[in-house]
């Protein structure tokens, strides 16, 4: 019970810190934090697929971008579009895209899954570049109105004020993170973790695997869409770069650096990268160089990522192996060529 109280206090402190953050650190760092939070949700959404379901996507950026564009277009073309509606556009934009793709991808072998996402991702990127009429091409869409947070008759909060936007953003992103976390604790969460481990066996326990994958896929993409949506509103600009390969790499490397076997890992990964960018860009333009080195060092020496380090410090080295009960991704579909899937037909 002591543990519980300590945890509650810790969360309380953290919440307080979040609320006070802008007052403590100023507008510039507030904006940095918002960017971090966006990518934290984006990376976590990605890890729902990778770390929890074992599906490796090479093109998650297209869902991030879909959410961003959906919101931007809604705000640009719909007169007086309310804030939350724009957000919903972002969420559903991604979900619709995911649902369109899921019949194709839900039954694919893992490597085909990854590559097909790469292909579709690049396709979306190219479409975004070429369809200048809709997407504004390389320059993108920008300067759309950011509506206030408006409850009729009660309150209207101006969202162009970075301070207000900060609270809105962390409410949305934090709420989404909590939802994603809660999802992993539900029976459905158990099923997707089992799918990662042995999807054939899941079938043999009486669960419909393709439908399960489709649901988690849609949810993961939906969360990515929310992240993209907030991103678009935050920048008041969205261009094709959001769909580019760089944005597809970002959640992967953030997840790897943070620790792929845990829920919080990608959040830490996003934080680490945000800090690297901030610190490095003061001294040099070669931020990618530092990031590349960090990647190499992490993979070579701390493959479990930051959460592994945390586990070490906590003295629970089993944390790496068990990954807080969900197991470590040593790459289910990347088993060495001598490893066969356990249900191989024999006699």
């Amino acid at each position: 019970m002591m543990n519980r109280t300590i945890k509650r206090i810790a969360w309380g402190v953290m919440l307080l810190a979040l609320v006070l953050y802008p007052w403590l650190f100023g507008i510039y760092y507030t904006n940095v934090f918002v960017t971090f939070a966006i990518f934290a949700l984006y990376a976590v959404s990605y890890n729902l697929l990778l770390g929890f379901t074992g599906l490796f996507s090479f093109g998650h950026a297209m869902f991030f971008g879909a959410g961003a564009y959906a919101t931007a277009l809604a705000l640009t073309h719909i007169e007086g579009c309310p804030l939350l509606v724009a957000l919903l556009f972002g969420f559903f934009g991604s979900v619709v895209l995911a649902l369109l793709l899921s019949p194709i991808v839900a039954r694919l072998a893992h490597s085909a899954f990854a590559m097909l996402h790469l292909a579709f991702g690049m396709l979306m990127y190219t479409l975004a570049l070429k369809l200048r009429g809709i997407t504004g091409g390389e320059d993108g869409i920008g300067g759309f109105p950011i509506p206030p947070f408006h409850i009729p008759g009660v309150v209207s909060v101006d969202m162009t004020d970075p301070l207000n936007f900060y609270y809105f953003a962390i409410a949305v992103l934090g709420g989404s993170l909590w939802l994603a976390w809660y999802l992993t604790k539900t029976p459905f969460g158990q099923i997707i973790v089992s799918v990662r481990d042995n999807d054939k066996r899941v079938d043999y326990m009486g669960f419909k695997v393709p439908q399960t994958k489709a649901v988690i896929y849609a949810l993961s993409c939906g969360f990515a869409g929310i992240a993209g949506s907030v991103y678009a509103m935050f920048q008041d600009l969205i261009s094709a770069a959001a769909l580019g390969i760089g944005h597809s790499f970002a959640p992967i490397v953030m997840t790897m650096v943070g620790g792929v076997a845990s829920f919080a890992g990608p959040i830490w990964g996003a934080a680490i990268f945000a800090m690297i960018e901030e610190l490095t860009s003061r001294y040099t333009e070669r931020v990618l160089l530092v990031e590349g080195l960090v990647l190499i060092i992490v993979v070579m020496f701390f493959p479990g990522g930051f959460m592994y380090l945390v586990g070490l410090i906590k003295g629970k080295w089993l944390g790496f192996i068990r990954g807080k009960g969900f197991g470590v991704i040593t790459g289910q579909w990347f088993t060495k060529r001598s490893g066969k899937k356990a249900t191989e037909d024999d006699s």
Partner: protein
Amino acid sequence: MDATTAMYVAQGIHGLAYGMILFLVASGLTLIFGMMGILNIAHTAFFMLSAYFCYQVVVWTGSFWLALLVAPIATALVGVLVERFLLRKIHALGLLYELTLTVGVMFVIMEAVKVFWGTENLPLLVPPLLQGLVDIGGMEYPLYRLFIIGLSFLILGFLAFILYKTRLGMIVRAAVADPDMVNALGINVPFLFMFVFGVGTWLAGVAGVAIAPILTVFPGLADQMGMDAFIVVIVGGFGSLGGAFMVAVISGLLSSYGVQFVSQLAPVLMFMFMAVVLAIKPTGFFGERE
């Protein structure tokens, strides 16, 4: 030969030249992936690195031919070091980690060239011997492009010969098909891995030198070539040289003719083609590896 046909042929030669360069890069990549299962994201960075090495050798010695010899080997050396000291250690962790590592290597190489050579386009001249035009059937074609095609075929032939007519080649092909079995036969597989990685990188290096005079040397070289090479490997099939060749040539011709006549659609066509192929046959045209 009338002007229109000549234009088509000229387009064809451009396309073929680009396709052959693409094939050189892709062949290295597909060999590396076919054998070691590493999707080496940094491969195109090596391609670019070699172009920079080539530039440097020319700056120091003035000789393109020397650069053609030295730069790919130097690049291969870097590749071998990466394999030996980085990739090998984490091989057991699985593809995801290999992938992340090679992304890191790519970032490092891409930024390192900016540190050493700056960010501008560095011009490189076609060597005097290969400058100028050649007369074929009444029309004139750039000699250098023809040289590239010829060189690529030469290398391809050499590669094919080694792979299919020598014992070494047989071992490599066996290792591509079943690395564990080859290991069990007592062959030093780690050394073989290193060798193939080196050769694959060398191929990318040759392509880098070849393309340098055409595109000039600049940090964006890796991006430009990058996606195309990966698409070729994926669609042609991981580990399949024949598939890579076919797709690379088609791709080169497509983008060459496409650029002229259907400019906006060319990249879209490529991606849709890839997506369709994968949806129908998830291992690519000729690939066997899952």
